[in-house]
């Protein structure tokens, strides 16, 4: 599927190139002032879908709604924050487009181009996760009717100073359901999750969802409107027409054409008169006047750029970089020019670990899987390779407050237990190379496949340790596409990977554990295993988990609208997954580390609990001229108090 899509994009790009060659400059001119106007088309679309788009009056808003403005939460950031300065950062690749949707729009630096600044109607408070207002002034949740009412802040403006209105949200539905944008995922999402949008007046509307899950409100509150006036020319040529046009949003930074240095640099400028600049929650954020993003592809060069002060901040993940390349004794650190900070954060975790394919020969035996669990010396990897910084992952779904079953303990390295389980599975004697053999002469050997080249050392350590338990691990490192295909076609024994956690309130189990994603017709009517079942490929159940009772729980979990019951089910599902033993939980990073130059200032406590990157909320600030002063002091050998700190106020909290 992936390749077909790539092919499509390649053909489109080719077509675009050909038309561009044919049309010459003429076409570029018309693009800017085309006179196209799709207003009528949009109105016709609304009229053709009366179920989806409803036009009502303010009188139709139920009177008994409980409105919330989210203004009771603590402020974000520091009152000491000053506006000004330029923040220098690097991106690995130049953005292939400025579009936020459509082909090629999911590029690595997308967050820096628009993701970090785009506002939604509300956001979860980064410390408490309670909803606080963004574009919305207030909102009301009508759970029985699966509806959320939103009143837009009357001050809210797009970055091009046009006011934001309900029409922009109506248009957002037109936009995301449109085939013009060539984004099937958005098309699907909007047609599956929402059933109606009702406009009451210029600033008030309601959105109706398909289900009333506990996090239903997020489906509406976390939406962003789409500027209708900007997309007047939306049509089948959307990818080319909007390729280099920056979509206005409600945030603080914008990109001007003159600030695009193709292939080299993108500069974002802060809107001095940003409409939210005095808002309680936003006034201390987005402080620097400019964000300068320079393309540096090579990691080593990025590092050198940081050490020269060309870049203000670097996130550092590996122990080697943290302890050896930038030790606390480094002259720049000891001299107080570069600060080193470790910040323990919260939230759903990446689940690095070994995913065993339980449909494979031998691995279909739970005793073999249990033996493998006990033969993996993750503690040694964490202690000796990650130098004790990482922690042991417990389950596949760590970090969901309440929903994660914290009673589950990952299995330790224990060769006695491992051998017991292997013996139960028939592997009782050791061959001449020390690897266990069963009565049929089969060796206990599996291939560990991955596309994570950077963790190759971890696998070699696991391999050497597993030999002690009589298990052979063959390491196979493929490139990304080949590895992914191998997993999707279920050709793997064991795969090392992590799935990015869903950032919702509760984990999703269906795609990873439900037998629908493991086999075609996994079970017969009575719940017994279907002897003719075939492995289903191209799904995320890469462990091939198929358990009849587990299926029932997952279905109930997915249908449930009762949070307490969902939590109970979630714990049961995780417990059963643990017993199934096809996922060997590896390591988890419960913190992020960053090194930054002294001229970057941070609020007290450094950052917020539910952030995954140091710069995410842009709570830091800089002072004009300070960088030059500090660099001059460094040249003259004048030192400062070093700042090496661990912020662990959120450590251990879920």
């Amino acid at each position, binding site marked *: 599927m992936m390749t077909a899509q790539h092919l499509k994009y390649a053909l489109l790009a080719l077509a675009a190139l050909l038309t561009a060659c044919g049309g010459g400059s003429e076409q570029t001119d018309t693009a800017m002032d085309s006179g196209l106007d799709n207003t009528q088309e949009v109105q016709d679309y609304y009229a053709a879908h009366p179920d989806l788009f409803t036009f009502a009056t303010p009188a139709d808003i139920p009177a008994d709604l409980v409105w919330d403005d989210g203004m009771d939460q603590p402020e974000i950031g520091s009152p000491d924050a000053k506006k000004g300065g330029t923040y220098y950062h690097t991106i690995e690749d130049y953005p292939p487009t400025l579009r936020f949707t459509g082909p090629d729009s999911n590029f690595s630096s997308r967050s820096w181009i628009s993701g970090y600044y785009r506002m939604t109607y509300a956001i979860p408070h980064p410390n408490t996760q309670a909803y606080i207002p963004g574009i919305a002034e207030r909102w009301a949740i009508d759970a029985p009717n699966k509806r959320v009412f939103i009143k837009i802040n009357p001050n809210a403006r797009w970055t091009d100073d046009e006011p934001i209105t309900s029409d922009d949200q109506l248009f957002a539905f037109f936009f995301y359901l449109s085939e013009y944008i060539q984004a099937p995922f958005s098309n699907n999402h909007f047609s599956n999750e929402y059933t109606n949008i009702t406009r009451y007046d210029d600033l008030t509307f309601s959105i109706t969802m398909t289900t009333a899950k506990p996090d239903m409100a997020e489906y509406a509150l976390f939406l962003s409107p789409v500027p209708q006036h900007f997309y007047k020319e939306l049509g089948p040529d959307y990818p080319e027409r909007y390729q280099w046009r920056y979509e206005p949003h409600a945030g603080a930074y914008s990109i001007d054409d003159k600030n695009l240095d193709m292939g080299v640099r993108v500069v974002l400028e802060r809107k001095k008169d940003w409409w939210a600049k005095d808002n309680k929650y936003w006034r201390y954020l987005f402080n620097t006047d400019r964000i300068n993003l320079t393309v540096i592809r090579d990691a*080593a060069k990025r590092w050198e750029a940081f050490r020269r002060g060309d870049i203000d901040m670097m996130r550092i993940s590996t122990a*080697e970089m943290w*302890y*050896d*390349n930038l030790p606390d004794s480094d002259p720049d650190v000891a001299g107080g020019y570069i600060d080193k900070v470790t910040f323990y954060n919260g939230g759903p975790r990446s689940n690095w670990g070994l995913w065993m394919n339980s449909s494979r020969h031998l691995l279909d035996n739970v005793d073999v899987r249990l033996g493998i669990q006990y033969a993996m010396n993750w503690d040694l990897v964490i*202690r*000796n*390779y990650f*130098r004790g910084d990482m922690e042991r992952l417990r389950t596949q779904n760590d970090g969901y407050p309440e929903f994660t079953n914290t009673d589950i303990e990952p299995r330790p390295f224990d*060769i006695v237990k491992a*051998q017991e389980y292997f013996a139960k599975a028939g592997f009782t004697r*050791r*061959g*001449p*190379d*020390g690897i266990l053999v069963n009565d049929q002469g089969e060796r206990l050997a*599996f*291939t560990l*496949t991955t596309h994570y*080249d950077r963790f*190759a*050392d971890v*696998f*070699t*350590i696991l*391999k*050497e340790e597993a*030999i*002690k*338990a*009589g298990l052979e691990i*063959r*390491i*196979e*490192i*493929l*490139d990304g596409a*080949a*590895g992914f*295909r*191998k997993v999707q076609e279920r*050709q*793997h*024994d064991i795969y090392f990977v992590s799935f990015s956690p869903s950032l919702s309130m509760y984990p999703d189990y269906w795609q990873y554990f439900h037998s629908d994603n493991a086999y075609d017709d996994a079970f017969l009517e009575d719940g017994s295993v279907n002897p003719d079942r075939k492995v289903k490929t191209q799904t995320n159940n890469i462990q091939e988990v198929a358990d009849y009772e587990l299926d029932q729980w997952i279905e109930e979990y997915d249908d449930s609208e009762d949070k307490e019951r969902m939590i109970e089910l979630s714990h049961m599902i995780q417990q059963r997954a643990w017993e199934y033993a096809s996922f060997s939980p590896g390591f988890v990073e419960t913190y992020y580390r960053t090194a930054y130059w002294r001229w970057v200032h941070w609020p007290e406590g450094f950052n917020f609990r539910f952030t995954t990157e140091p710069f995410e909320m842009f709570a830091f600030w800089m002072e004009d001229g300070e960088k030059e002063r500090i660099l001059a002091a460094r040249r003259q050998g004048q030192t400062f108090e070093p700042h090496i700190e661990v912020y662990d106020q959120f450590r251990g909290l879920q």
Partner: protein
Amino acid sequence: MSLIKLNPQTLKKLRRFREIKRGYYSFLILVGFLLLSLAGEMLINNRALVVSYEGDLYFPTYSAFHPGTDFGLDYPYETNYRDLKQHFEETGSDNWVLMPLIPYSPFENDASSGIFRPEAPNAERQHYLGTDTTSRDILARLFYGTRIALIFSIGFMAAVYLIGVAVGCAMGYLGGMFDILSQRLIEIWSNIPFLYMVIIVFSVIPDGFTIFARILILLSVMVLFSWTSMTYYMRTETYKEKSRDYVAAARVLGASNTRIVFRHILPNVLSTLVTFMPFTIVSAISAITALDFLGFGLPPPTPSLGELLKQGTQTLRTAPWIVMSAFGTLVVLLTLVTFVGEAIRESFDPKKFTLYK
């Protein structure tokens, strides 16, 4: 090998090769190293050479593994002979262990501080070139990496020559349509990007294959895309020789095609072949190193020069001994082979003295 009889001419060439000291000694060093490395397990290994336990002698180097329980230890996995030696010494028993010169395998992590990180060369711990990023002995990894690279490149050379000479000779000797068609096929074939083929082939190899099988597959893929260049030389050489009078004479005398090719033409183009050999080896070593460097070569944790080089470039500042060892070995190895190559070329050159006017 009756087809390559040592006639006086060849003997003269060999004598001349011996006279070129630089190449000759390089050759001796290389052959010496190769022979030494074949018995490498007795020099660099974490298995003991001899263990004397309770009056019995054990020779674990090439035997099946001995679990710790064989020597009165309490674990069922492979004995750690370094610890065993220490254990025997501490308990003051009559048992003893004789370890190889460098008592480390290229796979085991041996960190003095308990943290897997590069450690500088340390004669006391017998890590003479230090350890790599996961605390494995660099000397052991270099030694076995070089051995694999050398054997790999010799195998590569043999295979490339076999195919290249056969096809090239046939093209030159048979000529005509066969020649034209083969040439076109070779042109097409040599345009297939080799690196992509390696990636593709490796992604479809079934799981069950051992590391040795994977190395063989890598070798086959490399040979499959490298034999073509050899055919060009062979084809022209054969063409040239074919039109010589002695070939015509042989034909008139009724010699068969096989006889003409093997008895008359091949010995006469031998000098071209032989002079290319060392350079083929150089390119094979470079290729396997480059592939390992890029991560498409031998599967980890197979010791390899490319993998060490890659580690070295990432730890240039913090652990310079890694890159120095790997780079130094590569330079020495390639220089030696190149010296041999130059000497061969010179000794096989019919013009001993060239006068410039």
